[in-house]
């Protein structure tokens, strides 16, 4: 018998319909984008060629989708089998998050009908960090699909196929650890080439890939804690606090490492004055740092880790911290020079909101109809 079960229950609920409305609004503006061009729905310009479609959907979105990656490392590399029950929901969220990232990349591509050039060896520019990100994210989406395949095969009782797949799955799992390490670090490397436009507090040059992958990893663990806490509330399931608090310990170590490197770089390069400059960048830096420090302090004490509420708050703070780190570096404190400013247009925001709504709708549908959630003894009827 599988360790997992579908949650069951009605798929079309009130929240589901609400998400559906958001999705339709998003799709409307998306159609507008493809018919009338990106200028019709976005505020992109010559100095800000990347807006929220890149920075949220891809840069932040894929980091938020690192739950599958973080858990795969824990379970399969560090051999902590006790976390296994969390892995399927995490993989599903990762698949959807990366799917959103891939979709975001296509809709943001000004010449999307020529996207295939990315996969033609004779067109590839191996100096390009963007090439690495593009290929690696595409490959990882395929890997996530295969990693999630057992759930689908189980649902349709394709046992022979499932057995065969399980025999080779270890290679796919290994790839599923390697690929996010590669492209998540590259998302940081991308900032190097943006040079002087990136504010000095975020322009860490050689340290960019390390900081990017550290925060992606921390966000991955935090999203698992967040989803775990939320689904125990939302679906009235027994909380998995004992498992989640263990992840809390890992998060503490990661945040501490991150902060040491981050502040070490600022001290060594003599940028401490910028932290207290009293301008927008220094304010954003302080907020960002506070969001990193809060979960560190809370999760350092065993009491904070074992309390479901404080665990949830810490996870949310960490997610906001990693999100703000990326937003600050790529958009908020980015300065391409005089004459250029950017704030997303409402239709632009609605496209992103719509895509996230679709992502959540698919998640709800799949956990209710496919064996994704860990089996528990006294599951009350879900009613979300």
């Amino acid at each position, binding site marked *: 018998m599988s360790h997992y079960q579908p949650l069951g229950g009605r798929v079309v609920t009130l929240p589901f319909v609400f998400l559906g409305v958001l999705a339709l609004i998003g799709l409307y503006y998306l159609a507008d984008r493809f018919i009338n061009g990106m200028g019709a729905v976005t505020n992109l310009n010559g100095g800000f060629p990347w807006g929220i479609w890149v920075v949220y959907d891809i840069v932040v979105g894929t980091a938020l989708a690192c739950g599958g990656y973080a858990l795969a490392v824990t379970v399969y590399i560090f051999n902590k089998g006790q976390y*296994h029950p969390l892995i399927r929901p995490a993989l599903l969220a990762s698949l959807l998050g990366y799917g959103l990232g891939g979709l975001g990349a296509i809709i943001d591509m*000004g010449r999307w009908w020529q996207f295939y050039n990315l996969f033609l060896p004779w067109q590839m520019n191996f100096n390009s960090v963007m090439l690495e990100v593009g290929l690696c994210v595409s490959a990882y989406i395929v890997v996530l699909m295969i990693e999630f395949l057992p759930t689908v095969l189980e649902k349709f009782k394709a046992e022979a196929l499932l057995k065969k797949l399980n025999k080779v799955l270890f290679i796919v799992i290994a790839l599923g650890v390697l690929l996010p390490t590669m492209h998540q670090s590259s998302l940081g490397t991308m900032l190097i080439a943006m040079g002087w436009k990136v504010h000095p507090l975020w322009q860490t040059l050689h340290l960019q890939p390390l900081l990017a992958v550290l925060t992606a990893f921390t966000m991955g663990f935090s999203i698992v804690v967040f989803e775990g806490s939320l689904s125990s509330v939302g679906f009235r399931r027994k909380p998995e606090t004992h498992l989640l608090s263990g992840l809390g310990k890992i998060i503490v170590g990661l945040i501490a490492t991150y902060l040491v490197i981050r502040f070490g770089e600022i001290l060594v390069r003599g940028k401490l004055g910028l932290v207290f400059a009293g301008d927008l960048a220094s304010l954003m830096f302080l907020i960002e740092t506070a969001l990193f420090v809060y979960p560190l302090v809370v999760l350092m004490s065993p009491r904070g880790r074992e309390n479901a509420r404080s665990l949830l708050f810490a996870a949310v703070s960490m997610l906001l911290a990693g999100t703000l780190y990326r937003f600050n570096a790529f958009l908020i404190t980015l300065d391409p020079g005089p004459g250029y400013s950017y704030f997303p247009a409402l239709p632009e925001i609605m496209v992103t909101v719509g895509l996230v709504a679709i992502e959540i709708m698919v998640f709800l549908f799949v956990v209710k109809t496919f064996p994704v959630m860990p089996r528990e003894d006294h599951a009350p009827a879900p009613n979300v």
Partner: protein
Amino acid sequence: MNRRDFLRASLGGAAAALSSGGASARPNLTPAPEAVGMLFDSTLCVGCKACVSACKEVNDMPPTVLGDDVQYDSARDLSHETLNVIKVYTNGQPITKDSVTDGFAFEKRSCMHCVDPGCVSVCPVTALIRHPVTGIVTYDAEVCIGCRTCMTGCPYNVPQFDYGNPWGMLYKCQMCNQKGVERIDKGGMTGCAESCPTGATLFGSRAALLEEARRRMTLQPGEIYNYPRGDVREPSSHHEKAVPHYQQHVWGEKEAGGTNVMHISSIPFDKLGMPPLGERSHVSISEGVQHTLYSYMALPAVVLGGLTWLVKRNTDDEGDDV
């Protein structure tokens, strides 16, 4: 080696590789062997914008019209319909030309044709190319995917995307040498240099232009100099003019590896809107990091091998499924 040692070693190695020490970063690229470019002398520019007009004619682009001002091109900045623009610097009462205070000056904006171009380095599909001989940076819309990474990688915000068109593409100055125009290949010069009445925009080889720029630095202010027009190597004509107070700075000689389009001026370049660049190109750093991590895919291959071994071991232990 047990599993713990392996993990420790590989984590340490990964961290070292990701922060990559900078040891293997490549130096800046050097100028192409027969690099061609332009020299813009801000002190000679009278702001007539003949170059803006000529550029649009050569490149078959529409004039930019703002409001009722229909008699001349009124483009304010680079855009999908303007590859070359003249901008004005003013301070206080703009009375004296080329004076920092209570003065004004003109500045040309167009692709600088970097020696170590950011756009070329970051483009995933090789849509932007630095010509191996002339150093001219050209764009191929046929392969471009429109990701606009070139715009983020350009220190001068030169490449411009046409957001208003669902089939839009990127626009940048290709030194009048793109397919179908090929003025340089045919032995001609750029439209802007050809049309410039004062020789503020000069065409020529990068070496000859740099020599000319350095010569002007050495002239005494007030001294009469015979300024060339057109191609610096074989000027179409000359005119005599008193030498202004030049800043002792050839923009593009060294900035971020240098540029083939260079500027000289009486006004410090930061006041003319030039970006804060050091001598090192940022893409030389990012390529260094990229190639440290992905040289021959050796590191990823080794890591994948280790990971596969660990996962195999750990899944066999428990007979787990996913």
